């Protein structure tokens, strides 16, 4: 019930060994040449739901946009299909379904701080009754949204003619008949104040035993439905620092939210209390050496969660051990190679994102230069390291100057756990084969022709760019740099591809290049 849904008709070619050939599928919000991007439109979060039927993006303007899968339920008419005379695409395709304003800019008067509306993370919750639930968060406040189809109702055959009521002066301010035209989906629940006294039925009124024949119920009919998003809960005031992650527990009852120094545990149904389970704030803030950068629950063990830190470590916690998880169950940390230390070592070691693979056996982490795959049973070193940004090593000084070195790239795993992907500069993203022996390492551009740059490049072996194993580290792969090959070594550090997500079952990647959402399949 929990897995395998929605994988219909999607086979994963090249499930082992063979590299995937990525093709452009779709783009939403494509930028016209020379069009200036509005800051608020820049995508800041992407998330597929568990089935892959839905995709959500959040942006800096606090909006959440939902997409739904179209294939399978083909929307074209039969005639169109016949004319087209080609099979419907086998890979998942999406269409815009709805959007809503999740967060608004706020001001914290106590601390004199502006709270941005930017969506930091989106997480899908358990679907119920066909209604989709999702959590969205900005720096401070988490909200639970319910998105469901609502019938647009027409009401007629009332007992009292509305026009009469208006003339009676008894009814002001709300129209008794609701027309779909002026239906306001974002209406405040407390809006429409009562501008009149409620009808009073005197106590002496005697109801005849058979009822009053002249009274009747109104007639309701509906011919249209609309997707309506409603905020069901607001989980506020629990974080002193900026929230960087939220993650649902497999018990479908709780979730965690993590800020720079603390992790809180919430019950989805209780918005006015949360439990602090991790607190790394030192007594004296001058002793601060480490912050939490990302946290995630184990996909199936309700008691396990992992969090990463700015020091490049991942801690695995067991909530069963104690209420406040001060002591980690496992600490994953790679010893740095002796002699390689520099001013930037600590900065680039900081982990920007971690993800559990589906089974929960592996954890993928992203730091500035690499992707690392950890086996939860091996704490000393990652089982694989994929060099993403090795070619930037000589430029670290510049990157420090322009703050790019602090960019937080996300990472993702394919549903089968056999491949990993992460973003880079110049709107590029990279996909690596994660199974032992795989040499797959592709670089793609978030554009309509993802392999454009690839084609320009004299490639050594067919379509694959990289197959050179790391010289020193035999586990390392993809260490070669596309640097010399792309645009004559020119990078566009302003075009960062920070956010991307892999479809839970199909080989489909959704990634954000500024305000545009690009989808690729293989």
């Amino acid at each position, binding site marked *: *019930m*929990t897995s395998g849904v929605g994988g219909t008709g999607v086979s994963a070619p090249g499930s082992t060994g063979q590299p995937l050939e990525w093709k452009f599928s779709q783009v939403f919000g494509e930028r016209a040449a020379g069009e200036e991007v509005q800051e608020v439109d820049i995508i800041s979060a992407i998330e597929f739901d568990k089935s892959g039927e839905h995709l959500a993006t959040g942006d800096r303007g606090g909006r959440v946009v939902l997409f739904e899968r179209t294939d399978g339920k083909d929307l074209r008419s039969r005639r169109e299909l016949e004319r087209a005379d080609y099979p419907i695409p086998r890979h998942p395709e999406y269409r815009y379904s709805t959007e809503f304003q999740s967060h608004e800019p706020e001001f914290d008067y106590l601390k004199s701080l502006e709270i941005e509306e930017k969506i930091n993370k989106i997480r899908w919750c*358990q679907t*119920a*009754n*066909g*209604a989709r*639930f999702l959590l969205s968060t900005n720096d401070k406040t988490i909200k639970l949204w*319910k998105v469901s189809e*609502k*019938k647009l*109702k027409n*009401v007629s*055959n*009332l*007992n*009292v*003619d509305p026009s*009469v*009521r208006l003339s009676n002066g*008894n009814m002001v301010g*709300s129209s*008794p008949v*609701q027309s779909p035209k002026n239906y306001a989906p974002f209406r405040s*629940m407390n809006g*429409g104040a*009562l501008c009149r006294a*409620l*009808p*009073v*039925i005197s106590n002496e*009124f005697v*109801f*005849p*035993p*058979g*009822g*009053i024949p*002249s*009274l*009747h*119920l*109104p007639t*309701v009919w509906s011919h249209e439905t609309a997707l309506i998003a409603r905020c*069901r809960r607001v989980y506020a005031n629990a974080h002193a620092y900026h929230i960087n992650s939220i993650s649902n527990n*497999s*018990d*479908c*009852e*709780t979730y965690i939210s993590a800020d720079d120094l603390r992790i809180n545990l919430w019950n989805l*149904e209780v918005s006015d209390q949360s439990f602090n389970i991790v607190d790394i704030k030192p007594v004296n803030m001058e002793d601060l050496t480490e912050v939490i950068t990302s946290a995630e629950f184990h996909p*199936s*063990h*309700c*008691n396990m969660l992992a969090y990463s830190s700015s020091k490049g470590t991942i801690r695995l916690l067991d*909530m*069963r*051990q*104690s*209420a406040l998880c001060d002591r980690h169950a496992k600490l994953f940390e790679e010893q740095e190679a002796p002699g390689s230390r520099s001013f930037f070592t600590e900065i680039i070691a900081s982990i920007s994102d971690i993800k559990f693979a589906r089974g929960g056996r592996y954890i993928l982490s992203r730091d500035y230069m690499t992707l690392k795959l950890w086996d939860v049973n091996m704490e000393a070193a990652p089982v694989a390291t994929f060099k993403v940004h090795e070619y930037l090593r000589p430029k670290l000084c510049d990157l420090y100057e322009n703050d790019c070195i602090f960019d937080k790239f996300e990472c993702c795993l394919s549903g089968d756990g056999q491949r990993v992907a992460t973003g880079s500069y110049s709107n590029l993203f990279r996909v690596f084969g994660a199974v032992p022996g795989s040499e797959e390492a592709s670089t793609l551009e978030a554009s309509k022709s993802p392999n454009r740059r690839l084609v320009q490049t004299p490639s050594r072996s067919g379509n694959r760019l990289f197959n050179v194993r790391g010289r020193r580290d035999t586990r390392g792969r993809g260490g070669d740099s596309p640097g010399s090959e792309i645009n004559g070594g020119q990078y566009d550090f302003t075009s960062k591809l920070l956010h991307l997500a892999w479809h839970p079952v199909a080989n489909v990647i959704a990634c954000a290049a500024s305000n545009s959402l690009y989808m690729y399949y293989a």
Partner: protein
Amino acid sequence: MAMVDEPLYPIAILIDELKNDDIQLRLNSIRRLSTIARALGEERTRKELIPFLSENNDDDDEVLLAMAEELGSFIPHVGGVDFAHVLLPPLETLCTVEETVVRDKAVESLCKIGSQMKERDIVDYFIPLVKRLGAGEWFTARVSACGLFHIAYPSAPDLLRAELRSVYNQLCRDDMPMVRRSAGLNLGKFAATVEPTYLKSDIMTFFKDLTQDDQDSVRLLSVEGCAALGKLLEPADCIAHILPVIVSFSQDKSWRVRYMVANQLYELCEAVGPEPTRTELVPAYVRLLKDNEAEVRIAAAGKVTKFCGIISAQTAIQHILPCVKELSTDSSQHVRAALASVIMGMAPLLGKDATIEQLLPIFLALLKDEFPEVRLNIISKLDQVNQVIGIDLLSQSLLPAIVELAEDRNWRVRLAIIEYIPLLAKQLGKDFFDDKLGSLCMQWLGDQVFSIREAAATNLKRLAEEFGKDWAVQHIIPQVLEMINNPHYLYRMTVLSAICMLAPVVGPEVTCQTMLPVVINAAKDRVPNIKFNVAKMLQSMIPIVDSTVVEQTIRPCLQELYEDPDVDVRYFAQQAIQACDQIMCA
């Protein structure tokens, strides 16, 4: 559109607004569904209103919640128990919505209706509903189904009973943890209706499945089931099936499970009987008292008195008391506070000698605890220990503890101790109180925090009630009245409110002689706030004092205030004058 006669107009509007687009109006109509039903009559309620509600369930949760509640008591409106089944369809739909509170309410209403339905109707309508929900596509329906079995089962014939049991079994193994949690939560209720043979076979198997669930949240809830099932089973079966589970739960890897055990353990002692309690449960409880997770120790410490109440005094002294001693110096203040809140209750259980010998040192240590809540908790239960050993043994340590709390930096702590002062006064007696605590009570009247001053005034009233009028005249009133000369108007106001509270206790004579002049005098205060408070006070004194006093003293004063330049003073003076008039008329 029909025109409606004048008397029917409100009802017509009520009906129309079932579909208004203002949620407040819809909510109002739904809350008065019974009125609508009466207006339509029983037959049309069945044939029109109920189907109408079933079809229009696409509403806001607030409206659905109200609908679920109303339908629960709707049987009289549809024509009595014979027609109760017509109410099931709308509630069935409400059992499937996403919002938990709505579902819970719908289940509650279904149970309410089901328990009144005729057996034949249960078989024809209710059981099919339970089966449909149990096989629902979405987890929401299945979660709701779990709460209905105990109503359906007793009326079902054997064949259906077997089927119901197997549906429940499925629910206990559902993919979704929410469903399993609900199955665990409702198992006790269901088990109470199941025949003993199946209780031992089927129900115990379901229970076992739940106790071995991967999800902590499911196992947690099955701990609660232990006590419920334990009470249903024969002691021998309980020892064979429940005891091992609870013993293993008490050593569960998850502290949350152990926490639940610590909370529930004492309930199980009765079910298994004294001997297994001594051999199995006491050691389990001792382990929990020594658990390395503070939350578990807090729960265990909080139940120490209840647990000792079940076992023999000797076992308590031998096994539990050493742990209690350890807990009194626990590193977690919350553990100590939990212990302090119940430990006084152990005194009557252990008897005088053991209390003096063993418990007293612990009381004294806790009274000196650095954490104020611990001290407060001890003081709040002082009456229990007083019955056993008398207060004298404690009084020496008590006084410094009280004084320290009375001057605590945290005003909430001061507030808490003030609230215990009448209790202390009762236990300590007048003499001790006069010597040591009297001045404290006055001191609080001059506290910087309003809540403390307010509580101090209430406290004086309660003391006066406790020790009587004469005592109050002698020990409280002079000191209070003295404070009316305080240069700060806020403190003068405290005095006024204290007078106001004391007046009914000390009676008209004292009020007129000593307190009324002070109040009248305060009407000449330069601060308007004082003046309008005087007006309010005078108003409250009217019923207490003699009518001649009202006419001769109070009314002239109010008349004067009524001429005041300040609008608020005039307002309250007018209110008080009106009250005077009413009294005079009556």
